[in-house]
């Protein structure tokens, strides 16, 4: 699965994106955040405040309990500040 990061989530993680093989038991966006957070300090820092970081699956906003099954791309980013 492809993961992409934007804004300060990208900066804290230290890369714009990556390909990952999801381990058993990582079924939802929430699960993925938990698994990523355990991968290192940058990740832990990026996801420290779980209420803040938003997610998108295949370029649509989704809530944290959304299942990952079938999605090709997951994105993590802070609240938007465009317009």
């Amino acid at each position, binding site marked *: 699965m492809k993961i992409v990061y934007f804004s300060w989530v990208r900066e804290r993680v230290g890369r714009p994106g990556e390909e990952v093989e999801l381990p058993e038991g990582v079924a939802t966006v929430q699960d993925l955040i938990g698994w990523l957070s355990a991968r290192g300090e940058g990740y832990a820092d990026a996801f420290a405040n779980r209420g803040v970081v938003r997610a998108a699956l295949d370029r649509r906003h989704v809530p944290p309990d959304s299942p990952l099954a079938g999605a090709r791309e997951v994105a993590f980013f802070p609240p938007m*500040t*465009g317009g």
Partner: protein
Amino acid sequence: MTPVLSVQREDFDVAAELDALAVSAGDVGAVASFVGLCRSEGGRLAGLELEHYPGMAEAEIERVVAEAASRFDLLGATVIHRFGLLQPGERIVLVATAAGHRGAALEATTFIMDFLKTRAPFWKREHLQGGGLGPWVEASTTDALAERRWE
């Protein structure tokens, strides 16, 4: 109605976009528009860097405009959002709509801006006067509330 939607680095020509909307198919009586500009925040900023999520930015703008078209009686809509480094005074975003009557055009323009602010995947970072990077701009509570009043 086929909206004109674009996510681009270059500036845009407001007059040309408004003129195109004025001759939308149908009997246009109203063209409303909003242009968002880069502020200097009282001289503090050298500019704003706009990062976006290519692909999703376009898709989200399209969804917001489709929602506006389903709520308001629109004859045309144009949304152009820039990315990259913008200096104070530069245009960031154009939202413009055409309708038979003013209510639909003005409300749809406000609706699209409110939803772009909270849904379109763009992030602004400050570049400071005198050099150096400032912080990422934080999302405002006002924007979240502005979206909520349409529920």
